[in-house]
């Protein structure tokens, strides 16, 4: 009964959280966006006291149900564990707790958060690790399926589905996600919740609390015949059936043992157990991460050509990312420092960005955290999606009105690329599309009113949205690009 309830809830949470990373229409977020916001580490970094108190509360009452229901990485491991059970039944066994390793990693994590070594935090954060897996591997499949439906819809004159771009957002992030999936997946397949009880800092914190939880599974020593079936089915390896002791710091409240016991000797009750004892460090597990870099082929540019025949389409060269002195982070992030100190690199913002702007950073100090670039699209005035979904307070909620006055960077003109000067034709596409009215066209020759016009940027009005950079006809490098600001300003 309890096991079935736990499983049902876990599946519901897991599916819906996964959908948060897949659904690009925003429908799921409207109803279930809170599921990301109750994740422990993001809530902690967002200083979301309500959520933290709630999670501490349920842990103190029910034990680590967070780990078996709410955490998507935990549920994913149970999935791999089920596969493992198909191969061999009653496969687990009790192991001694690796307390020193756990607390060392927790201390390192705390230090990393305080010191701002965010790539380390991002690597170990369980929800974010799952987010990267979902965004890297499941989202493309989902989008591909959607695009098939879009083709079908188009054939039937329906507007129910529309095509979305599928593109590699970050090679390193993809590599990290692949490594996480392989390592955590293998550990779960072979040994159950090893990751949760040795590496995961959230597991360690909640484990420290769950030792004192009101409800916990307790072995009735009178009924128990010491068969050890419970221990062999405990994915947390926390039941010492010989001594009738359960290590509640590692128990993830999965209730599997209760159903397994033929004698009905285990029950989930308020009774106090005898004692539990901490043990020594025995072994050490190591994780390594692969970095995969991807190269993107660029098409050759085609200059403006003179028309001699009718029809046909000119080749359009892909835009390239300009070298920016300061990276651009989305409005709502407040500053690069704020983003860095809160972001757990879960990729939720990257997943929902409908304009192809956000992608994970490849720089070491901001590894896998989001940054903006405008060669595929620009940060559109009506969109505040990333700020709505961020669970960690790295991108704070903003309204459309806020967005129109938040300066995240400013546009810089590159004379050498500007089309009126290179091709000798009128342009002004940047000025025409600037939502802030920050660009004015002026004659390129101050003494000649009739000269072709070039853009001048009023950086006091520019908000850094990148409309100018994205819509600039100069290729592969735009004649106007955005430099990020370290701290955002409200104009």
């Amino acid at each position, binding site marked *: 009964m309890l096991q079935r309830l736990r499983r049902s809830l876990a599946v519901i949470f897991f599916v819906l959280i996964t959908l948060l990373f897949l659904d690009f229409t925003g429908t799921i977020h409207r109803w279930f966006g809170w599921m990301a916001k109750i994740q422990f580490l993001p809530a902690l970094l967002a200083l979301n006291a309500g959520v933290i108190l709630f999670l501490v509360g349920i842990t103190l009452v029910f034990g680590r149900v967070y780990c078996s229901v709410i955490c998507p990485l935990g549920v994913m491991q149970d999935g791999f564990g089920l596969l493992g059970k198909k191969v061999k039944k009653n496969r687990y066994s009790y192991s001694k707790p690796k307390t020193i390793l756990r607390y060392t990693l927790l201390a390192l994590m705390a230090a990393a958060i305080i010191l701002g070594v965010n790539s380390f935090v991002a690597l170990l954060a369980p929800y974010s690790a799952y987010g990267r897996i979902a965004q890297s591997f499941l989202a493309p499949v989902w989008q591909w399926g959607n695009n098939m439906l879009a083709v079908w819809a*188009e054939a039937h004159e329906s*507007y129910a589905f*529309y*095509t979305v771009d599928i593109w590699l957002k970050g090679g390193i992030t993809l590599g990290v996600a692949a490594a996480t999936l392989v390592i955590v997946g293998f550990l779960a397949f072979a040994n159950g919740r090893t990751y949760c009880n040795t590496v995961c800092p959230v597991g360690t914190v909640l484990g420290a609390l769950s030792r004192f939880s009101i409800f916990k599974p307790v072995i009735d020593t009178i009924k128990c015949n010491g068969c050890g079936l419970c221990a062999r089915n405990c994915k947390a390896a926390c039941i010492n059936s010989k001594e009738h002791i359960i290590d509640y710091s590692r128990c993830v409240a999965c209730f599997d043992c209760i159903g397994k016991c033929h004698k009905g000797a285990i029950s989930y009750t308020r009774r106090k157990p005898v004692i539990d004892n901490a043990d020594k460090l025995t072994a050490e597990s190591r994780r390594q991460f692969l970095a995969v870099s991807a190269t993107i082929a660029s098409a050759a540019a085609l*200059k*403006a*050509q*003179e*028309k*001699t*025949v*009718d*029809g*046909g*389409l*000119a*080749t*359009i060269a892909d835009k390239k990312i300009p070298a920016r002195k300061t990276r651009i982070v989305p409005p709502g992030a407040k500053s690069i420092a704020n983003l860095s100190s809160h972001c757990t690199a879960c990729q939720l913002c990257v997943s929902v960005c409908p304009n192809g702007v956000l992608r994970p950073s490849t720089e070491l100090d901001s590894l896998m955290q989001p940054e903006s670039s405008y060669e595929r699209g620009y940060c*559109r*005035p*009506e969109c505040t999606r990333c700020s709505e979904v961020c669970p960690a307070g790295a991108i704070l909620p903003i309204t459309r009105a806020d967005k129109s006055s938040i300066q995240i960077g400013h546009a810089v003109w590159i004379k050498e690329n500007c*089309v009126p000067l290179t*091709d000798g*034709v*009128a*342009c*002004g*596409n940047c000025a*025409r*599309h600037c939502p802030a009215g920050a660009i004015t066209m002026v004659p390129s020759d101050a003494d000649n009113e009739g000269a072709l016009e070039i853009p001048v940027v009023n950086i006091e009005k520019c908000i850094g949205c990148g409309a100018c950079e994205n*819509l600039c*006809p100069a290729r592969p490098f735009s004649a106007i690009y955005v430099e990020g600001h370290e701290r955002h300003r409200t104009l």
Partner: protein
Amino acid sequence: MKKHDITRRDFLKRLGIGVSVTGLALAGCKQPANKLSEGKAALGEIPTDKMTYRTNPKTGEKVSILGYGCMRWPTLDSNSGELDQETINRLVDTAIAHGVNYFDTSPAYCQGRSEQATGIALSRHPRESYFIATKMSNFAPQTWSREASIAIYRNSLKELQTDYIDYMLLHAIGVGNGIDDFNARFIDNGILDFLLAEREAGRIRNLGFSYHGDIAVFDWALANHDKYKWDFVQIQLNYLDWKHAKELNPRNTDGEYLYGELEKRGIPAVIMEPLLGGRLSNVPDHIATRLKQKEPEKSVASWAFRYAGTHPGVLTVLSGMTYMEHLEDNLRTYCPLKPLADDEMQFLYDTADLMVEYPTVACNDCKYCMPCPYGIDIPAILLHYNKCVNQGNVAENSQSPNYAEARRAFLVGYDRSVPKLRQAAHCIGCNQCSPHCPQSINIPHELQRIDRYVENLKQNSLS
């Protein structure tokens, strides 16, 4: 078990019998069963010997009232623009079998591929069984020299696999910079004199011009008719442009005037854009209903073709038929042509008055504007906009009753019809396209207007 052993086919057969029995029973006993669709399709065969012909007053030759416009040949792949020769051959064979004998092409059509494809298809038939019309399409300034223009002409002969042209045209006089461009293209370089000499030599059997744009050039050409002896002139004529062309765009001229000027001088008229690139076929729903109500068994397009053919001074009506269905429909209209009565003409003029209320862009998808050097797919954008106008998917404001559906249909359809990088947002307004537009559309203006509309939809700020 045996009892249930019927196959799916048997089942459907029994079901079908059951349904038809029921149907007969419901229809009552008195009614005899109709037989029309049995054995042959209701539409019936198109006669091969009923084509209406017009006589060329100079040569006395009989020209089919349906002329084949070779500007819209089917492609194998819309991206590469490679033509589907096999289908083109079939279209040409069907047309000739039903009496079509006038084929109109140009060195510029279909990204420069039309003449060759037309030549391949036609060369499979005896040369005397058809007339070839092609054009001096020296639009680009680098082809304005005498040598370059003559090279274009010689290449036409080669591509069309012939040593004479039946109908040669100065292509689109009046486009670009009016009389100046006309002089530069045809007079100053001596090309018109060259073509007159070719006519003298018999390698050009009829010499004429096609006209779009600046009316001064048309008037100048006709004022000099005594000197040049135009054998025919190609003009745009349809029931919308007859009285509304100038009203819709002050730079254009009403068909009534153009045709009247030719009739006065007894010059045969070749008609182009009788259907406005499909805009007189793909009309708003209530216009279509209005036309169908009057002739339920005839297509909407047939009205436009009968209209053009009804004018007695018309030699042939050109239609760029991409699909076999277009060709068949037009053959039905013209085998033979049933001219419109006066009240029917008036009915079409009244229809035209209703149509001008629709804010469509006058694009006929001729692709003369293309390729845009910055990669914009101009006709695709304008066509998508027109489609949405006709389907009622261009909302006036966000309070419109169908705003949400119209918005989605416009935006989703926009991304489907035009890749993002080729959409109107990327139009820089360099205006290299507009001088090429036979309909004198101010293309950057229209694209930027559509882009603003798209922006308003995206931002949900349509007011």
